[in-house]
């Protein structure tokens, strides 16, 4: 890396060729995955959009995409940057001190450490800042007690990003601190949480006198909410990004086998996500295959679905164009896109029901499409809840985009005096 020039001002073509040349020298499919990832990090290509002092090259997102494209062309495996690890890295980069960056970033990129997110609690869902997990300073440690929920991948995580309350007399957003917690300790118990569709993609995490060294607090005491907001913003951006399970998994070679195994674990919680979104792709083919397409009423509902789905694509393309044009117009794309996703999923579920008729009663291997339709019908209810309920999106749109007055507040003053759920 030291010998190379600063590419952050280079053209896309130069970047592309540089990456290809580097891959030509370094990429081999018979390497162990861990070895390759270390070479990748040392070569500066693991996360080129990170700062130069943190394994990166200070590339723009567009430049980083050029790098990605070169990797795809060669079929080279990239850094282990998916899911919660990505959010942890993003947050540590923005808010961590030097020691924290040194300790945590590299193992994220190499895949040595798996991470999870410990934000939501049973008593605070939409109202995330109402959390009651307690972090009590005790010498060089914090002692953590409380319960977290909706923790994807927590059952195989090494570390977690955690928010907990350190001050009960401060207003609710100001008494929260942000921690990096070691999941491999006695005070941390992870239990899988089963959903109505039969999957168990999430966990509950019980924290009982779990310890976090003071050196693993991110930022100052009371900064937790501000830092968590930056994690959440990164999460929202990831929400709309493709979770594409790499086509690399089908390729031959030692490294691909290891990669496929890694991805199988990482992606396991998300196998039902396409069904949650309604599987619009199946609607027309199924209607044609079953003959339901001859029913004029089904035709109307199917057309409504396709209208919604296409319009959502157009709206996304239009929002992207506006962003590219650097317009300052408020484009409420995020929340509207999320509401639209709910509309689409619901309408898709309706169409799949009509098309299936009584077969919609059946699931598993007895159900239409080997259970895929049943999984749609039983997963769609989650789309309007996960990642901020439809109701929260409508609050955001009406208040932040349309400028309508905010809801009256009943949660000001010291947190300990605010009404909350019994725990």
């Amino acid at each position, binding site marked *: 890396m030291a010998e190379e020039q600063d590419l952050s001002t280079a053209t896309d073509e130069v970047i592309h060729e540089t990456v290809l040349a580097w891959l030509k020298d370094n990429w081999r499919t018979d390497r162990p995955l861990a070895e390759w990832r270390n070479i990748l990090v040392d070569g500066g290509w693991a996360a080129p959009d990170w700062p130069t002092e943190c394994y990166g090259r200070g590339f723009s997102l567009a430049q980083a995409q050029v790098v990605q494209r070169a990797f795809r062309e060669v079929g080279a495996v990239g850094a282990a940057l998916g899911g919660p690890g990505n959010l942890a890295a993003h947050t540590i980069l923005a808010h961590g001190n030097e020691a924290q960056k040194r300790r945590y970033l590299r193992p994220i990129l190499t895949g040595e450490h798996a991470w999870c997110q410990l934000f939501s609690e049973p008593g605070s869902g939409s109202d995330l800042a109402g959390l009651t997990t307690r972090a009590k300073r005790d010498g060089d440690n914090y002692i953590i007690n409380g319960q977290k929920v909706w923790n994807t991948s927590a059952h195989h995580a090494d570390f977690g990003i955690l928010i907990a309350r350190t001050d009960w007399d401060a207003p609710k957003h100001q008494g929260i601190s942000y921690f990096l917690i070691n999941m491999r300790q006695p005070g941390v118990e992870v239990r899988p*949480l089963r*959903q*109505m569709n039969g999957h168990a993609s999430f966990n509950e995490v019980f924290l009982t006198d779990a310890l976090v060294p003071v050196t693993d607090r991110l930022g100052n005491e009371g900064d937790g909410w501000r830092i968590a907001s930056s994690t959440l913003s990164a999460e929202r951006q990831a929400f709309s990004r493709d979770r594409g399970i790499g086509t690399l998994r089908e390729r031959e070679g030692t490294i691909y086998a290891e990669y496929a195994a890694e991805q199988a674990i990482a992606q396991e919680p998300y196998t039902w996500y396409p069904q949650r979104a309604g599987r619009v792709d199946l609607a027309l083919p199924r209607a044609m295959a079953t003959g339901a397409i001859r029913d004029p009423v089904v035709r109307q509902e199917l057309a409504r679905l396709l209208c919604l789905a296409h319009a959502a694509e157009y709206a996304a393309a239009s929002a992207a164009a506006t962003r590219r044009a650097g317009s300052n117009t408020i484009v409420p794309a995020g929340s509207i896109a999320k509401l639209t996703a709910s509309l689409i999923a619901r309408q898709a579920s309706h169409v799949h029901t009509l098309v299936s*008729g009584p077969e919609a*009663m059946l699931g598993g291997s007895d159900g239409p499409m080997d259970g895929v339709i049943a999984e749609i019908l039983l997963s769609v*209810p989650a789309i*309007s809840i996960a990642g901020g309920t439809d*109701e929260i999106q409508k609050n955001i749109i009406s208040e932040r985009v349309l400028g309508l007055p905010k809801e009256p507040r009943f949660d000001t003053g010291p947190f300990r005096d605010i009404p909350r759920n019994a725990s």
Partner: protein
Amino acid sequence: MDMGFTADQHQFRETVARFLQDKSPPTTVRKLMATEAGYDTAVWRQLTGELGLAGTHLPEDYGGFGFGPVELGIICEEMGRHLYCGPHFASAVMAGYAVLLGATEANRTQLLPDIASGGTIATLVLDNVGDATRVGESITARDDARLTGQARIVLDAHVANLLIVAAATAEGLALFTVAPDAPGVAITPLQGIDSTRKLNTVVFDDTPADRISRTPLDIADLWDHLSVALAHEMMGGAQRLFDTTLDYLKMRVQFGRTIGSFQALKHRCADLLTELELAKAATYAAARYLTTGDGERYSPHMAKAMAGDAYMAMARQAIQLRGGIGFTWEEDTHLWFKRAKSSEVFLGTPDWHRERIMQQLEATHG
């Protein structure tokens, strides 16, 4: 048309409700739905014995209590509310009504008392449970004595000791009895999305059968009776979801206030109540139509169409208004959601029923 319930009917509902509250709490439902049989035989014996619920709607001449669709509706409503797991709908409602409305006098006399007493668990085998006009397209009878064909979805056939089968004959649709262990009968359990109601595929291959009805069977009339009973069951479930959701909204705190204080949710509850009350009114009216002939001839279709939409809307909101917890397995809402989704398509989707309304209107005004 008097739409109220009598004091006796209210009291009857109380009795049924108390029994089911005791015998069919969610913990029991969860236990039973994980079993193969899917029901508790002791509870079934009490329910049919002491309470006589399998014979409530059957005439006294056939061992029943001589009540009708209104009282059966009360039973089904309470069973839907408590998600009772057992063969009542298959045996008492589906097979019971089929024999009552379709069988000859001699066969009624022979078959109904055991169905009414619960001693026989029967089920009705229809080769189409989505479109009444297509029943008989698969199962056909040869020489009025041997059945061949498949019924894709049959309730509780795995525990039935008597199959009532609708099959096509040269003279039209007719009803037959078949013993579940007769030659050429294959009963295969299915995975339903709603595991509180067990489904099976039933296949006949030159299976010996006895015809018990004249032909043609009035399938529309039978379907009307089944739809109205199912609509009641659905309304019981929808009411349960509404009640528990309302409780949740009054209890759950976010942002320092109960979430039931948010106007958007309050108004949604008002909308849900309105839709529920309308669907219930249509359902009760349909039971009265079946009893007295007063009201719209197509009221059974209105009942099932409105119940289907209202139950699904309620089930969807019951989850949505609970947020993430509503989507978990350990919360009970999904049990009713699955029954709602299943019932939406069983015995005809709302769209199918609406189309039938129009056909009947045209027949009247045409």
